[in-house]
């Protein structure tokens, strides 16, 4: 989304769904995973909207949808690409929107070659380095941002989710455009050509969706487009957890641009985030390659602040202000020690020189390269792909700190991991010293959540944490304090970054809890006079302002914790701007300039949202305008203008260097400017579209505990004939530490289960309420069987495909225990954001419980032998 529109967050907010005429929920089981937000879908339905759910399974979302479309897991780009093709070949695009608000007219460089020309690859492929030279994807006669273009891609990163930051860098505004959209090298024509293969017949062939059903979806969606109508997409990790995950979302972004559904009420793409504050943990990231506010981490070649900024900012568009954000951040880190003379302590920042993502770190643990690990609010022994690998790796650490409410599996693996039962691990031989530290829950501490729609909401301490439980803020602050005390007086240069930190938060109460309000105040920022700033437009690059995260700037404006506002909904407009605070600048619906025509008037009365008020000479409406408030629609950027001044008055996508949404991404993505269907890492089918089977850039790991099942056409592919997918149920939460420990939730879903169709049950003699063993080349797990009509076989490439559904909430601890689905999931990642493919892999299934102890290993070994995967390391496929 960052690449397409400029910011890596949901473009809209859940309440706005009620204004929609058609809602496509795809890659999410919204009713089960976001039940509270789902009320707005129900509201839209009551108002006459059509609700479509595209999901391999018929779920609680499908149960109240108007149309449920089952498809093969991992085939969404064909389905969505089919819609793109339908729109383009039937002239259903919202023409004026496409012409004016997207890069459809822009002419692309001559060097660019499409997958059409290269059988599934784009131009610039380097077979040696297994990566693209993305400079061939640039607009005609526009320079990419040189060497840094490669790093830029990191910025669309967020773990567990696709959501990144902002568009790719451009050297400037593209000089060549064809407003008639006829030029064969314009984006519009290239798009048309790229998706010409994605026909209804192809959708049927690849996704197993009958073409009539597909056409109905396309039809309804197109009918919900134009000045009077809008449609919305909702997705979550059913899209992101694929080796081409980011491109799934890109395809939806293309559809929404073509239909004119971005920046308008009832439109948009709603990324449904996971944990209460997962959005917050990418905004102020817990990621190795990002700094707060999606500023990229420094790389070795960024030798000084100047080069860091030069290689990451954009001359035109809001991103041109990156220097202000970066300097204010450095001031927040190092306070008075950061001066213009010392580059604001830029040198103190660590540099990224290799992949230090979570999964790589785990493999490094396995190798003994990583010795210690802090697990704060995470349970990888159950929740992470190839959980078995995680347990084996953690058993190789010197020390492990687990901060959690309960003794989760990641803290207890040394005595009760399944590998103890199989004999692979022996408690007395595990060197890891585990420190289990009780964490305070959100009710026991002050702080904020940033929810799925970028909305910050404050929570207050309701009761003091019990016993030794402490907040994570307490832990981080006091850990830093103690380290600084221990280093005090050190003259070692390498200790300076720590000693110079501005680490002076006031604490309160008997447990010396740091004042969370003051942390938020720092995040929001202050000026030279130590007054809270009003927002990011007030930030400066001269070191006079301090701001911990520029996108959150203004959340403490007027010295008021804006996130703690709770004006009841009935006392304000439906947009409810006085409930909490949303980034950026309390905007709820992003790019809302697009809700008006180029001339500033609303597209229609029905879809009025933000419009130009000629009398007052400013933008007005229901929300904070996502535009310079007084920039008239007829404003034309003067030659050589920079930053936002370079954006015309009729260009709504102010974060993009060219002010428009990107149908075609000339920069910012590693695996292609146009989304392209590639098969999942494990698949029983060949890619029906191209010779290139898989995403050529996907990240795979060669490891004996991470063997991949053979895919179609490879020896042994028939051994794992079924596709399985993993997901959640309403009754449990992720890795289960917070739900399997509670009787009220455990009784609602008391055992690990698998869901199969009656047809598969028949084929494999599975009995409802009985047991089944699900086998991959990693390991095998057991589950209770639910035989249900909610799953259906699909006809894919002329063959019958059965899919197996597996919730992933279970582990060895708690009131309800069971095998972990993640023991089956291999590590294979999306190249842009390093998200694991946990939504589509292959398996076999057989009736009965799995063998115990070493017999389990024997069973898996037998399968591996049949599949030609004997020995270690597992064979890697050529791509």
């Amino acid at each position: 989304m960052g690449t397409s529109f400029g910011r890596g967050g949901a473009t809209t907010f859940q309440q706005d769904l009620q204004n929609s005429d058609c809602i496509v929920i795809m890659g999410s089981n919204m009713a089960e995973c976001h039940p509270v937000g789902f009320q707005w879908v129900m509201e839209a339905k009551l108002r006459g909207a059509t609700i479509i759910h595209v999901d391999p399974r018929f779920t609680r979302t499908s149960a109240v949808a108007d149309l449920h479309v089952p498809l093969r897991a991992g085939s969404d780009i064909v389905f969505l690409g089919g819609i793109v093709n339908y729109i383009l070949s039937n002239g259903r695009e919202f023409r004026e929107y496409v012409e004016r608000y997207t890069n459809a007219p822009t002419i692309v460089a001559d060097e660019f070659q499409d997958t059409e020309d290269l059988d599934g690859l784009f131009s610039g492929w380097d077979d040696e380095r297994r990566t693209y030279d993305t400079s061939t994807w640039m607009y005609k006669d526009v320079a990419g941002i040189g060497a840094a273009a490669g790093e830029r891609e990191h910025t669309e990163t967020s773990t567990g989710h696709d959501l990144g930051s902002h568009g790719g860098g451009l050297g400037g505004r593209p000089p060549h455009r064809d407003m008639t959209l006829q030029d064969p090298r314009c984006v519009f024509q290239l798009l048309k050509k790229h998706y010409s293969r994605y026909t209804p017949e192809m959708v049927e062939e690849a996704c197993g969706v009958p073409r009539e059903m597909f056409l109905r979806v396309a039809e309804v969606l197109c009918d919900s487009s134009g000045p009077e109508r809008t449609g919305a997409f909702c997705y979550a990790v059913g899209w992101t957890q694929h080796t081409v995950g980011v491109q799934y979302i890109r395809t939806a972004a293309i559809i929404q641009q073509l239909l004119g559904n971005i920046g308008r009420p009832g439109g948009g793409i709603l990324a449904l985030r996971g944990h209460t504050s997962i959005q917050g943990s990418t905004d102020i990231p817990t990621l190795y390659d990002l700094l707060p506010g999606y500023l990229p981490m420094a790389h070795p070649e960024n030798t000084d602040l100047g080069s860091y900024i030069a290689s990451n900012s954009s001359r035109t568009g809001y991103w041109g202000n990156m220097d202000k954000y970066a300097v204010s951040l450095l001031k927040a880190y190092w306070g008075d020690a950061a001066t213009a003379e010392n580059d604001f302590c830029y040198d103190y920042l660590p540099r990224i020189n290799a992949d230090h993502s979570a999964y790589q770190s785990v493999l490094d643990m396995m190798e003994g390269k990583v010795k210690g690990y802090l697990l704060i609010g995470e349970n990888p022994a159950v929740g992470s792909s190839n959980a078995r690998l995680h347990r084996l790796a953690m058993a190789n650490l010197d020390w492990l700190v687990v901060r959690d409410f309960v003794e989760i599996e990641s803290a207890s693996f040394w005595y009760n991991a399944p590998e103890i039962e199989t004999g692979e691990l022996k408690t007395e031989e595990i060197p890891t010293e585990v420190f289990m530290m009780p964490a305070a829950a959100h009710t026991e501490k002050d702080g904020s959540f940033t929810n799925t729609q970028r909305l910050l909401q404050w929570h207050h301490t309701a009761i003091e944490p019990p016993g030794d439980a402490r907040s994570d803020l307490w832990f981080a602050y006091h850990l830093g304090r103690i380290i600084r005390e221990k280093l005090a007086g050190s003259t070692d240069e390498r200790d300076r970054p720590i000693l110079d930190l501005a680490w002076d938060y006031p604490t309160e109460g008997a447990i010396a809890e740091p004042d969370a309000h003051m942390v938020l105040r720092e995040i929001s920022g202050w000026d030279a006079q130590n007054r809270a700033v009003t927002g990011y437009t007030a930030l400066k690059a001269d070191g006079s302002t301090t701001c911990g995260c520029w996108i959150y700037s203004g959340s403490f404006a007027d010295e008021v914790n804006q996130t703690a506002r709770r004006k009841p909904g009935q006392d304000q407009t439906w947009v409810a701007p006085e409930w909490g605070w949303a980034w950026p600048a309390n905007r709820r619906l992003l790019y809302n300039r697009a809700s008006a025509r180029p001339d500033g008037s609303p597209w229609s009365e029905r879809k009025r949202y933000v419009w130009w008020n000629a009398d007052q000479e400013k933008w007005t409406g229901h929300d904070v305008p996502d535009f310079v408030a007084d920039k008239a629609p007829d404003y034309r950027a003067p030659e050589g203008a920079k930053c936002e001044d370079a954006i015309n008055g009729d260009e709504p996508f102010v974060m993009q260097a060219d002010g428009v949404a990107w149908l075609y991404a000339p920069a910012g993505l590693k695996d292609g400017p146009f989304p392209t269907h590639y098969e999942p890492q494990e698949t029983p089918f060949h890619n029906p579209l191209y010779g290139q089977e898989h995403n050529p850039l996907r990240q795979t790991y060669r490891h004996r505990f991470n063997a991949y099942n053979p895919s179609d056409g490879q020896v042994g592919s028939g051994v794992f004939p079924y596709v399985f997918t993993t997901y959640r149920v309403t009754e449990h939460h992720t890795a289960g530490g917070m739900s399997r420990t509670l009787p009220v939730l455990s009784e609602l879903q008391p055992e690990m289960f698998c869901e199969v169709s009656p047809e598969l049950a028949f084929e494999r003699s599975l009995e409802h309420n009985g047991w089944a063993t699900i086998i991959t080349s990693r390991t095998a797990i057991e589950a209770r069987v639910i035989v249900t009509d909610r799953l259906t076989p699909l006809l894919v490439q002329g063959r019958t495909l059965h899919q197996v559904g597996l919730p992933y909430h279970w582990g060895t601890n708690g009131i309800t225990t069971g095998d972990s689905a993640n023991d089956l999931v291999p590590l294979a990642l999306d190249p842009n954001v390093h998200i694991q493919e946990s939504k589509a892999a292959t398996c076999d299934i057989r009736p009965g419980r799995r063998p115990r102890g070493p017999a389990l290993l024997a069973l898996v070994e037998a399968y591996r032998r049949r599949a030609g995967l004997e020995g270690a390391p597992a064979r890697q496929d050529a791509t």
Partner: protein
Amino acid sequence: MSVTMPPPQPSGVRDPAALSGWAGHPERVGFFTDTSICIGCKACEVACKEWNDVPEDGINWLGQSYDHTGELGASTWRHVAFIEQRARIPAQEAGVDAPLIEDVPLTQLEREQGFRWLMSSDVCKHCTSAACLDVCPTGALFRTEFGTVVVQEDVCNGCGYCVPACPFGVIDQRKSDGRVWKCTLCYDRLRGGFEPACAQACPTQSIQFGPLDELRLKADDRVHRLHDEGVPQARLYGHDDDDGVGGFGAFFLLLDDPEVYRLPPDPVVPTRDLKEMWTTAAKAAATLIAATALAFAGRRAR
């Protein structure tokens, strides 16, 4: 002394609170549970347990679709039913009903019949003529000023009479405790001016709480709308004052026959036949006296 048989009233929502001696009482309140918009999230079940401190009801795999708590009982006061059906809601198209696949030896025709997944949150009906309350010998069950039916846990002696009396199989004895328990319609919250916990937790307004007469109007609208939208199966259950229990305080919009949801199709409060039963008993008693007389008739002691 309380007698709780409301005489038939001509029309409108009946006012059992007044009949139970509440003067100047608040409006009768209740629930309209619209199962057509239930998403089966079970938030109601959980919220009820949390608020009312209801203990665990057994961690058992039942495999009734996604229902593993089975039915209402002493420790489950809200219960969400899940029903998977080979039937079609005409307004809905379920992809899993698409006829396809030649080589699968199963019944594609069955798939063609459509598919739907019904969910419904059940609760005590707070009957206008409540059998549980009628038969309770201790007066532990009483009619509140809101027209609801509540057990006083400090009075109930666990005689268990209310259990088979309830025509809906709602109230039950908690083995560990001896007393009976059921939904209180959050009496404590109502008195504090709050809506019941389950209704507040319901994200889709499937559970609507409010004055009963208003709810009935809403329900009428809703059912007509559904009919217009092509859901002919929609029907109200328990909204009729003239039914066997004088109308429910908590009534429902269903998409199939009540019994599919474990609801009796034509519930009748057993005390409706009380007069007949006492009369029969009197006749039997008279017979017994007559028999005695006969047995001793004739010769005196032999």
